[in-house]
């Protein structure tokens, strides 16, 4: 169990996940939940702090307080996305974002879409330094990804029990989806609602999918990715029908993906013609270990790639020990 919980992943994956999560925090502030800022104009009388907000001596939000948190969180999140000072910046972003969420959720409505994100923010500072493209494997990083994955799956799995607790078995045959469609449905949803029994079948489907979601940890890597793809497609449907985005959850769910393959900076540099074109410029990795000598010096030096020495050590390492249960490492970055 302890091995599985701390199963090592490449540092490059941690670096990429860090960038995704901290960029998401910045995007969340300005795009996904911009209404949090409007708390400034909501009278303090309506502020009903949550338990955590009552235990910690947090002040009733004032315009100045909200502005300070907003701007410092935005700046620190963008800095943290670079991967620098992962502990200092990581803990600061974690604390500020939690405070931001306590403000957001203390006016009568609590959202349930960000448990995974909060866990990711709480564990990323413990994952240590990580550079993009570094294939050295890290157990601390593996734990950070694993617990984020567990938090994401708990959001599904335990939601089924919440339905049983609050709605009972009648939930399955009730009209919860019809209600959701009436309150915030799209034209597509209105169309779907016309089909007899479809919404009730969908309700059975949702609970079945939630109860089965932990199976994702038992599947072989390829099937696991397929199942995560199914999770994403479920959210595409909920966005298209009842405009529920669950965006923070979707960001946290990238913890299942071999993110180290996504190298936008590297691709951009290649497109700009810095470095030889074609396969010769691909980053050597475990899959090419025996055929591809180190060519790192040719292109893309700097923060994006690990020093050649490090790379060599790791390749042997990766060959000896497969990644097992975490998403597979792939030899070269996917893309153009």
């Amino acid at each position, binding site marked *: 169990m302890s091995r599985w919980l701390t199963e090592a992943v490449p540092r490059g994956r941690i670096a990429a996940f860090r960038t995704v999560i901290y960029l998401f925090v910045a995007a969340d502030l300005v795009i996904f939940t911009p209404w949090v800022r409007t708390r400034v*104009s909501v009278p303090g009388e309506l502020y009903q702090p949550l338990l*955590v907000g009552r235990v910690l001596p947090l002040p009733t939000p004032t315009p100045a307080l909200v502005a300070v948190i907003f701007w410092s969180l935005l700046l620190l999140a963008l800095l943290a996305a670079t991967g620098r000072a992962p502990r200092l910046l990581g803990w600061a972003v974690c604390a500020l974002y939690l405070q931001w969420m306590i403000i957001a959720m203390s006016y009568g409505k609590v959202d349930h879409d960000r448990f995974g994100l909060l866990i990711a923010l709480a564990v990323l500072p413990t994952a240590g330094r990580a550079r993009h493209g570094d294939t050295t494997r890290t157990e601390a990083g593996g*734990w950070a990804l694993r617990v984020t994955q567990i938090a994401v799956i708990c959001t599904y799995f335990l939601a089924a029990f919440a339905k049983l607790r609050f709605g009972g078995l009648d939930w399955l045959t009730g009209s919860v989806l019809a209600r959701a469609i009436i309150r915030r449905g799209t034209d597509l949803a209105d169309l779907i609602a016309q089909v007899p029994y479809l919404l009730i079948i969908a309700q059975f489907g949702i609970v079945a999918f939630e109860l089965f979601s932990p199976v994702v940890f038992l599947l072989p890597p390829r099937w696991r990715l397929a199942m995560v793809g199914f999770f994403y497609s479920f959210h595409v449907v909920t966005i298209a029908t009842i405009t529920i985005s669950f965006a923070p959850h979707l960001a946290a769910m990238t913890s299942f993906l071999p993110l180290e393959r996504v190298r936008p900076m590297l691709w951009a540099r290649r497109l700009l013609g810095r470095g030889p074109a074609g396969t010769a410029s691909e980053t050597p990795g475990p899959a090419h270990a025996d055929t591809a000598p180190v060519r790192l010096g040719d292109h893309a030096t700097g923060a994006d790639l690990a020093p050649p020495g490090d790379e060599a050590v790791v390749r042997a390492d990766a060959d000896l020990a497969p990644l097992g249960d975490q998403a597979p490492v792939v030899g070269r970055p996917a893309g153009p």
Partner: protein
Amino acid sequence: METLTTRGRVTRLGATALGLVLLLAGTFWGSDDDFPFGPFRMYSTSNPPNAPAPDTRVEGVTSSGVVVDLGQDATGIRRAEIEGQQDRYAADPALLAEIADAYAERHPDADALVEIRIVIRWHGIRAGRPTGGHTDETVVSWQAPR
């Protein structure tokens, strides 16, 4: 490979176990108040197949008799927050004055509101499908003192 020390491993195991215990307790005995460890109760309430569905809105009436929508864009208050505190508004309708204040704050040039009300539009549902019909019910209303 970068391995963990025994202490690092034990600390992480402990933190994981603690988090899971809190989350399980929240799921079975907790409430939204226990954020972030409360139950994942989005869309968890059960509605009978033929029960009408409520669609809540807040509206205001200006001194010239015009009805204005007081949704999230107008006041910064989310609909679910109105619903979450509906009992408070019902017990003390004067709280609706706060919504008038939030509106005035964002619309300094608009006519003052003389009445605020929370209206629920009940949409008919049959066998889990919307019927298309609806009725409006004013659940709380407040008149501004003149």
